[in-house]
């Protein structure tokens, strides 16, 4: 059945960083997640914030074509003149509905395809899990899909969902539980019944709980098999130390979870937390609102979420995790801020210029394109609305090259702090971030899910409408100031996954060549991946 989904076999892409930075640039800056793209819109929401304007040159070019009757190819793409783009950032207000029981829903009709999509964000997450019970929320989320309900036992539910080719999932993040459903519109009745059952009448079948627990423990045992995920865990452990942001589930913590813990968490999350929904697809709008009201019939009274204080507080300058591989996986980090923050847009543009723009970023150009030292290098100024984020630079290179690669990165950081960005870089970054917006608001599904997420994290309803102007008004001085404020080479922490023997040899050779030496850092620790579970 592969062909129907047209899986392309053994595909390899030009740039992993491009995919990452595509999200990092617009998603970070505009502050939205990437969502499934759907062609077709039949909503007609009010819009503001035109992002493009016509030029006099365009009109002249058109007149020239009309006069000569023959179009010419210009000698360089920079001479191309484009018509104005009659597109405005769509607003979410017209889709927003307050359900009778309290939750907010964004609802939009899209009859292009016989599909319905529903997402929901529930205020919960791993940051609030009790110490020693790490993994509780994830296990609950798995069981809400697989553990059966009062009306349907687990096997019946699996069979029903598969038979109708529907898709339901729950997943826990740090600060939410995210629900997603997708199904053919003709099965709307059944899907809404299933959704209500899963949300409010799960039974957490003990046999299925044990099956899911065992699978979870198996997955925990394999999580350090590849260097990429190992680097991510090590970096968070390094940056956030003992806080909730650095905790990970262990076999012991998952074993300690009782069915009663899950039932209690479900009660807290689904009857006393914020829930924001987004529904889109082929349905009648009023009918969908009625159906959502029927699902959320019982009043929900959100209680304030208590998240312990979390700070970026690395104790060491370097954390080296041993893995017998031929490359060093390196992440260099610096503390940033909790959003919303007045420096948000300036840092986003800085990040784009430094390492967020793929090949044209300074780091991509120097370390990948000029020197051929890596396939992937990018910076990422994280956005976090719950606790202070970090800005980090990540790359992979053959072990012998890592001191040189780090040296080049440090040189680029030093240069951007001392000399700032150029006007051309800034204008290019602005143009890229603003003109990319239409691709992130393609469909009703994009619009409602984006605004649901926007409200969930407490941002203003006109965040996206104002976004182009917020970007446009920034000056070179703003970006240069952000560079000076947030990039301090002496505060960079290094997290490295690689072969420690080869890293040691590379370090020795690096001293001779005048490159970065990890031995120059006063505080560092070397460990193996499995012991990361206990690292604080």
């Amino acid at each position: 059945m592969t062909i129907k989904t047209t899986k392309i076999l053994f595909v390899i892409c030009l740039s992993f960083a491009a995919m990452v930075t595509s999200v990092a640039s617009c998603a970070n800056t505009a502050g939205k997640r990437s969502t499934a793209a759907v062609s077709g819109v039949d909503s007609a929401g009010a819009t503001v914030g035109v992002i493009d304007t016509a030029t006099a040159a365009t009109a002249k070019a058109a007149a020239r074509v009309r006069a000569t009757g023959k179009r010419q190819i210009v000698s360089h793409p920079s001479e191309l003149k484009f018509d104005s783009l009659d597109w405005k950032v769509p607003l979410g207000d017209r889709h927003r509905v307050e359900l009778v029981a309290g939750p907010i829903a964004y609802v939009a009709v899209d009859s292009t395809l016989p599909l319905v999509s529903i997402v929901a964000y529930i205020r919960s997450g791993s940051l609030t899990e009790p110490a020693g019970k790490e993994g509780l929320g994830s296990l609950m989320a798995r069981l809400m899909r697989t553990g059966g309900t009062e009306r349907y036992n687990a096997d019946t539910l699996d069979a029903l969902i598969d038979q109708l080719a529907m898709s339901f999932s729950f997943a826990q993040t740090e600060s939410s539980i995210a629900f997603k459903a997708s199904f053919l519109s003709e099965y709307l009745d059944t899907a809404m019944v299933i959704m209500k059952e899963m949300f409010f009448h799960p039974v957490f079948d003990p046999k299925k709980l044990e099956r899911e627990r065992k699978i979870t423990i198996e997955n925990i045992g394999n999580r350090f098999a590849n260097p990429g995920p190992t680097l991510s865990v090590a970096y968070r452990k390094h940056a956030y130390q003992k806080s909730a942001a650095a905790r990970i589930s262990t076999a012991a913590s998952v074993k300690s979870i009782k069915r009663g813990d899950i039932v209690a968490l479900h009660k807290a999350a689904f009857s006393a937390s914020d829930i924001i929904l987004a529904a889109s697809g082929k349905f009648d709008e009023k009918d969908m609102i009625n159906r959502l009201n029927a699902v959320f019939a019982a009043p929900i009274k959100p209680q304030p979420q208590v998240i312990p204080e979390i700070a970026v507080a690395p104790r060491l300058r370097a954390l080296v995790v041993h893995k017998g591989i031929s490359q060093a996986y390196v992440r260099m980090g610096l503390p940033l801020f909790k959003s919303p923050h007045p420096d948000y847009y300036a840092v986003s543009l800085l990040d784009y210029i430094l390492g967020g723009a793929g090949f044209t970023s300074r780091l991509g150009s120097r370390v990948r394109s000029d020197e051929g030292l890596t396939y992937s290098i990018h910076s990422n100024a994280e956005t976090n609305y719950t606790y202070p984020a970090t800005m980090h630079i990540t790359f992979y290179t053959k072990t012998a090259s890592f001191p040189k690669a780090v040296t080049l990165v440090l040189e680029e950081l030093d240069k951007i702090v001392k000399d700032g960005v150029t006007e051309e870089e800034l204008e290019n970054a602005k143009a890229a971030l603003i003109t990319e917006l239409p691709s992130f608001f393609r469909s009703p599904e994009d619009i409602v899910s984006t605004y649901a997420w926007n409200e969930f994290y407490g941002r203003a309803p006109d965040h996206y409408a104002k976004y182009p102007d917020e970007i446009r008004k920034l000056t070179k001085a703003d970006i240069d100031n952000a560079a000076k404020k947030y990039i301090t080479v002496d505060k960079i922490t290094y997290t490295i996954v690689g072969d420690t023997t080869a890293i040691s040899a590379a370090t020795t050779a690096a001293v001779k060549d005048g490159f970065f030496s990890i031995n120059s850092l006063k505080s560092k620790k070397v460990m193996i991946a499995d012991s990361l579970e206990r690292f604080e």
Partner: protein
Amino acid sequence: MLKQIHQNIRRLLKAICFTTSIFSVSATASTAIASTATGIDLPVFSDSLSNGLRVLIVPDSNVAIVSCRLYYFVGGMDEWSSATGLSHLYEHMLFKGTKRLGTRDYSKEVPYLNSIDSLDRLLQSVREAKGENDPQYKAFFGEIMSLLDKQRRYIKKDEIWELYNNNGGSGLNAWTADNMTGYIVTLPKNRVELFYWIESDRMQNTVLREFHSEREVVTEERRMRYDNQPVNRYWERLNSLFYAAHPYRQPVIGWESDIRAHTTEKLRDHVHRFYTPDNAVLILVGNIDPKKAMADAGLYFGGIKRAAHKRREVVTREPAAFGGTRFTVAEDVEPRMDVLFQTPGYPNADIYQLDVVEGILSDRSGRLYKRLVDKEQLCTNVGASNNVRLHNGYFHIYASLKKETDPARVEAIIKEEIDKLIKNAPTDREMTRVVNGMRMSFVTGLKSLEGISDRLASFERLGSWKDMFDYQEKVASVKAASIPEAAGKYLNPELATWGFIVPKTTTKRNN
């Protein structure tokens, strides 16, 4: 609303059919198809230029963007021994610019390019004789990089990337597969001309600048994707054991020894054979007027010449399976098992029956999951996949094992389930589930502009983009009674390739 859409599409089709003759560069009549499969209409406008470039356009006025993708029908399968990975390397090189892009003064670059090529011939001869650690190799390589540094005075770095970025390009990338390569970007609807300009220029004027540093990048990519990813490394080797003769056995990224031996000369030869308009398809999906798009395509691509010589086609086909193959590696990763069975290439009619078999075995309520994950609790995940390919495909059963699980038990159960497929027809309920799954998959595949584009391209590569619309109907028409025969014909465990990743301490168990 749906009725309104259908009416609009009919009006649009009528208009297009009437106007096709105005395309001055048009070599074939434009056609438009509104699919009736699953009740969804999707207008596809098809035409081609006189130089053979095929153009497919799917208009959608509800979005403000256009997915722009140019596919060349060349990939890993078109590479001969010693030249694996050329298509992928060229995918990288196409971003290095042309005679007009990525340069401040191309004429001043030429002497450097020629000198670097000359040095590269010496470099390769030293590499072959003495290896890359030889001082002479390092000296030549250092000299090449020194020349490149001087050439860089005239290079405008990554201008193509910058042009797309600055004009709102999203999803900018390129990819290489076994049978085609794709150059992809999604642009605001008012900036599609930028795509025509850049891609038509890249089709005819590419300059292989910064070749050596990019070869290093690709080597790093190979290290990242395969050498340091145990499952990928295992899969690369298993694939090369499964295919005995067909170049599908080669990794698309290329073997490391081949990558290190690539030269600009080899690459140019490869490019001249395959990167021509008669071996490409341009697909535009989004807010675009087909008539104007065809005129633009003609303006920009119409003057590019076809390939000078007939392309060498891959005539190799897999010989019939002969005995089984077993491959076991010990790694500290999740244990797994893969079983690969030979299947015919597209469009053999049996592939639809094998799609049904895939559906019966897969998903949470599929036979394998119910047995191996639910009942026996030996695995954490399991499934099947019918991989349809141009020449020789494969049917794949895969299982992720718990660490303590004996692979022999899982192997025995998989054989039992295959035996059941051969002995008994699937139930009506199973058939309904498969057909529904196929329909849902087809519909969700139309959600993204880019997804539509890739699907059309893949079917065009297999034979015709039109096949996309009746593929699911062919699967739906498969009779349950025909499944045992198909399963018996293709799923013979004794002729399969079995792969195992086992924990390091239990390697001996499967040898």
